């Protein structure tokens, strides 16, 4: 029994395989599994299981033929399969379906799933039915004698898809050039216009998408979570930059205050250096003061005058002779009477009359010099002469070289 059935199954399967193998072949030799999917995409959406399942059993039979349960669905495909088989080889096909189709359908016919499978299998061939109208009639004849429930089921299904799916026939019309060409143009207009509209829409959308992608560089097309992530990133970097800004501002304040302090210290030091330079005689000076001219005097009289002027607040003094020499008078200055007239002040020989320029309060110094028994009185009593002139601007141009101290060091 089983052996006979197996042989019988092998026969139709072997007879059926070639047409299925022929279908993918025109497309691609190696892309046989793919050929099902892309070539008939509508089948995937509409009735994806149909062709996939139709292909699966065709590949399986050689491996799982012995099993009765598996062979039941395997044998079912052969029932509709002859529709494919018969057109090329009608003669042997008559024998095969008559034997296996009713025999195998009966045991498995009770299952509900089998009938749709067979019906789906029928979908495939029915699309090509216009190519082979004869096999349909043969098939109806074949199950008719069986007259059983399962045998009857495929028949109406085989008829149903064929009749209502006029569109399917129309679609199959281009494949079958012969008969359906008359009805083809009218049918094509409805589906064809839809295709044209879809293609136009596709091009339109494509361009729109390309343009929009060109235009706004991303952010507008991004998802909400991406935007949130970007926003949080920006917030984090913003706070980081804010802290950086505050730190930099602090250091800038510190540096600028340091600069200001340094500038103040520098100004103070320069001021102090100026004062010290004036006192030490290294810098020329100017200011209000007295210009005193003395003639026929000795060095002691000049020394008295210098001391009196210092006591009266004279700050910067200079002693000049009529021979053009002038000496800056500082703490270490000395005056000695020179032989043959004139005096020697700080290694410079000066000849009379002498000009003593002093910067200070003119009134105070003049008063100090003119007190009774003072410098002017003693010079006059010794036969000398003193003239004083108050000036708003006394120029002291003579300077001394700063002397490097050899022993003394600052205590601090």
């Amino acid at each position, binding site marked *: 029994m089983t052996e006979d059935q197996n042989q019988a199954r092998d026969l139709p399967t072997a007879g059926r395989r070639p047409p299925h193998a022929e279908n993918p072949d025109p*497309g691609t030799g190696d892309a046989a599994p793919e050929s099902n999917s*892309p070539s008939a995409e*509508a089948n995937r959406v509409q009735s994806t299981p149909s062709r996939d399942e139709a292909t699966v059993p065709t590949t399986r039979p050689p491996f799982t033929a012995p099993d009765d349960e598996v062979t039941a669905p395997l044998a079912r495909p052969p029932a509709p399969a002859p529709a494919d088989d018969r057109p090329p080889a009608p003669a042997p096909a008559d024998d095969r379906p008559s034997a296996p189709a009713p025999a195998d359908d009966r045991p498995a016919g009770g299952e509900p799933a089998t009938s749709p499978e067979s019906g789906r299998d029928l979908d495939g061939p029915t699309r090509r039915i216009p190519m082979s109208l004869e096999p349909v009639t043969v098939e109806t004849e074949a199950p008719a004698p069986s007259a059983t429930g399962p045998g009857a089921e495929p028949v109406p299904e085989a008829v149903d898809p064929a009749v209502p799916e006029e569109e*399917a026939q129309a*679609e199959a019309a281009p494949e079958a050039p012969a008969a359906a060409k008359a009805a083809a143009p009218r049918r094509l207009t409805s589906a064809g216009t839809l295709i044209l509209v879809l293609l136009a829409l*596709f*091009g339109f959308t494509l361009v729109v998408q390309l343009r929009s992608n060109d235009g706004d560089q991303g952010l507008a097309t991004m998802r909400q979570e991406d935007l949130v992530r970007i926003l949080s990133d920006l917030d984090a970097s913003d706070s980081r930059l804010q802290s950086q800004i505050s730190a930099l501002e602090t250091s800038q304040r510190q540096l600028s205050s340091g600069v200001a302090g340094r500038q103040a210290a520098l100004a103070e030091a320069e001021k102090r250096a100026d004062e010290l330079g004036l006192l030490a005689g290294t810098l020329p000076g100017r200011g209000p003061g007295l210009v005193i001219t003395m003639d026929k005097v000795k060095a002691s009289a000049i020394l008295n005058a210098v001391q009196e002027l210092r006591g009266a607040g004279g700050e910067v003094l200079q002693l000049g002779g009529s021979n053009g020499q002038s000496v800056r008078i500082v703490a270490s200055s000395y005056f000695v009477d020179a032989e043959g007239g004139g005096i020697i002040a700080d290694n410079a020989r000066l000849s009379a009359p002498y000009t003593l320029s002093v910067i200070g309060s003119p009134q105070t110094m003049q008063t100090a010099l003119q007190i009774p028994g003072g410098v002017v009185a003693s010079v006059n009593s010794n036969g000398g002469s003193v003239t004083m002139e108050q000036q708003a601007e006394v120029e002291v141009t003579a300077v001394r070289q700063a002397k490097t101290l050899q022993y003394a060091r600052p205590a601090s």
Partner: protein
Amino acid sequence: MIAVLALVAGVVLGIVFHPSVPAPLLPYLPIAVVAALDAVFGGVRAKLDGIFDDKQFVVSFISNVLVAALIVYLGDQLGVGGQLSTGVVVVLGVRIFGNVAAIRRHLFRA
């Protein structure tokens, strides 16, 4: 031929009118375009195979676009929109490559 003209007409319309994509559609439009591209290549291949079917093409075109957009929408709702759209693009890209390979074999026999 007419199909190519329709495609060109759509492109021209897109260039001329240059509409802005509404914000809610922005994440789905690229995926839909890729799905439609897949359907178009499948249709070309079917045409070359001689098994082109108008109804199949229309249904596959629309359903491809809708399913792709639906998957992305579902991914957005689940919080994995980016990954799912990447997956859809990968799958469609593989299919497009297969279809283009078949078309190439048809046209160049290589």
